[in-house]
């Protein structure tokens, strides 16, 4: 007895869930396969949820989704060895009826999402690894799983199996990941009471704070750190490019340990109990690293397609959006009675190009090279900025004019004036 479905979705992360949910809601016969014990079991880490992408799939998600805090304040810190300089933006407007960003814990969130997928009518099977794509005459016709009698057929397969998609690689849809295009991030969750979190971050109720951190903590490697407030815990993490980790030989966990012991961070997490440690890859190659997105009988969405905006640390919203668009592509073809050939699936790419997903990636397309070519963003600048602030804020009898000069000189000493201007120009161009 062979099983055949309208569509098979591989993976139950945000992309796979968005795809399976959309397909099932349209009444298609969908099978979703997930390797983990349950969707999200391995995803304990805290994360940011961007409302918009989810709203387009489940408009009333706020009714029952497990949300931690809505973000009302964003801080950006540049750390030196023992100091930091920073900015922050906080607005009461973020306390609206339908806030724009939330902190979430992936485990409960993924579970919730998966329940929605089931409720929509998809068949969700976990603890089952898809080992390869079944192809006939150059066309994907189904999947093979690691289980006995494990071949399953479908008109189309949507790959949403996450960063470093082995399936796509095996099928020859894309090549090896370039270590320059992936970051390795490590995170921890520290438990603290609600009251302590509220008082430490000066927030009430379910308000939340996000801190983006750059500087000395990355040992000059390309990368950043972050801190999110959850309801009863704090997520703290740091990530750098894999290629840099290889070069520097510094262990990711060492960075996290140093971060936790930085005087700027200690008072925020003090007294908390570390509960979870997780490490994960993030595709950061951007626009130029996006592989082929569709072919005969298949599409690829989310992290497996490298759809991550590293500059703004956005991923799940791109994943959900691409998953939804892939599903809508299938729905529209089915509606017209058309097969999922490569030619017909082209509308998926067109839809992505027309959405914020590709537009944003395109905008930052130069950024990876600039960062690779200018390591001082992550080493020299933090030091200079912090020293400048220190010099200006230290009242020691020296006049302010001389102080400014010292500051200017220290900048010029480390980086030629041309260099500085060049950096600024390139940054501006890259992010324009």
């Amino acid at each position, binding site marked *: *007895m062979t*099983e055949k479905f309208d569509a098979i979705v591989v993976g139950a992360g945000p992309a796979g869930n968005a795809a399976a949910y959309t397909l099932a809601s349209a009444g298609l016969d969908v099978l979703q396969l997930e390797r983990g*014990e*349950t969707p999200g*079991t391995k995803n*304990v880490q805290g994360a940011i949820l961007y409302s918009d992408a989810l709203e387009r799939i489940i408009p009333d998600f706020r009714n029952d989704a497990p949300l931690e805090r809505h973000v009302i304040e964003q801080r950006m810190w540049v750390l030196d060895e023992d100091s930091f300089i920073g900015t922050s933006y906080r607005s009461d407007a973020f306390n609206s009826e339908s806030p724009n960003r939330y902190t979430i*814990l992936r*485990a*409960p969130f993924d579970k919730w999402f998966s329940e929605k997928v089931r409720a929509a009518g998809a*068949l*969700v*099977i976990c603890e*089952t690894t898809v080992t390869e794509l079944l192809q006939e005459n150059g066309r994907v016709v189904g999947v093979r*799983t690691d*289980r*006995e*009698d*494990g*071949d*399953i057929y479908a008109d189309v397969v949507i790959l949403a199996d996450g960063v470093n998609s082995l399936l796509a690689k095996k099928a020859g849809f894309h090549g090896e990941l370039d270590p320059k295009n992936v970051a390795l991030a490590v995170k921890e969750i520290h*438990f*603290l*009471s609600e009251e302590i979190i509220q008082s430490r971050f000066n927030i009430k109720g379910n308000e939340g704070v996000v801190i983006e951190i750059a500087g000395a903590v990355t040992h000059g490697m390309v990368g950043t750190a972050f801190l999110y407030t959850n309801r*009863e815990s704090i997520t703290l993490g740091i990530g750098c490019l894999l290629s840099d980790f290889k070069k520097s030989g510094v262990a990711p966990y060492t960075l996290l340990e140093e971060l936790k012991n930085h005087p700027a961070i200690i008072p925020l997490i003090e007294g*908390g*109990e570390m*509960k979870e440690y997780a490490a994960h890859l993030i595709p950061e190659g951007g626009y130029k690293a996006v592989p082929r997105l569709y072919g005969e009988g298949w599409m690829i969405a989310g992290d497996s397609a490298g759809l991550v905006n590293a500059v703004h640390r956005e991923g799940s919203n791109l994943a959900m959006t691409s998953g939804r668009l892939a599903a809508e592509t299938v729905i529209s073809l089915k509606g017209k009675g058309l097969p999922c050939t490569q030619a017909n699936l082209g509308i998926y790419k067109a839809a992505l190009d027309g959405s914020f997903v590709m537009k944003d990636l395109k905008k930052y397309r130069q950024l990876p090279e600039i960062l690779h070519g200018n390591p001082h963003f992550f080493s020299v600048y933090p030091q200079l900025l912090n020293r400048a602030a220190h010099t200006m804020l230290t009242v020691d009898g020296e006049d302010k004019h001389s102080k400014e000069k010292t500051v200017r000189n220290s900048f010029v000493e480390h980086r030629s004036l041309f260099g500085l201007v060049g950096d600024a120009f390139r940054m501006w161009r890259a992010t324009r």
Partner: protein
Amino acid sequence: MHIVVCIKQVPDSAQIRVHPVTNTIMRQGVPAIINPFDLAAIEEALQLKDRYGARVTVLTMGPPQAEAALRKAIAYGADDVVLLTDRAFAGADTLATSFALAQAIRKLGEEEAVDLVMTGKQTIDGDTAQVGPGIAKRLDLQLLTYVSEITDLDLSAGKITVQRRSEGGVQVIKTRLPALITMLESSNTIRFASMPNMFRAERQVVPQWNRDRAGIEDASKIGLKGSPTVVSKIFTPRPSSQRAKMVGADLDATGVANAVLDVLSSDHPRFAREIGLVTP
């Protein structure tokens, strides 16, 4: 042959933590699993099925969510499942639990006589190892606890031979069917479900039996009412008395070894004398 396997869904105690702030158990995000010992019982039943042919029915008593455990059992290869669930069962201790399970097994026997009941050695949450013996007594089944291996099964004669663990050795016991076996953990490993069984697990209807369906007339024997024991207090163990005295920082291995023997001899002279530890 009809085999009934009793399983329980339990929180994965490896992942349970006490909340650092409120000192309460954190169950959120703690996955529910099939009691690990019960997997050995399921696997043994399936092996008997492979060898002799059998119908394997898996039974659990628990809240509606316990359905997930039964679906897993179907995936492994169980033919039928029954979820015994009713508010009236809530708060049951082992006596009330074994009563309800025994009643349900009796009911199952009306469809097809039950030859063998299998349970795990014990659960990892209740950890009592009492439910199995309780069921056996109530149904007048031959009780075989801590079984590591079923060495012989003679269906026509209705006889079974097993090896069971005793404190100082292994007993080889032969007795009649119907019997109840509690399985040791290490006796086998659960099989990897086939894809068709995974589909069956998702699609098969899981029958829910309430008190009436299980044929339980006397409500005073189930749930809280039927439980002689009550939990009167729950508390966290006293926090560790004190942290270890750290010995030998900055010393090499030999230095550390001698340092620890030094403090051992000076803090615990009697013990040191007893074992003949002297200062060099």
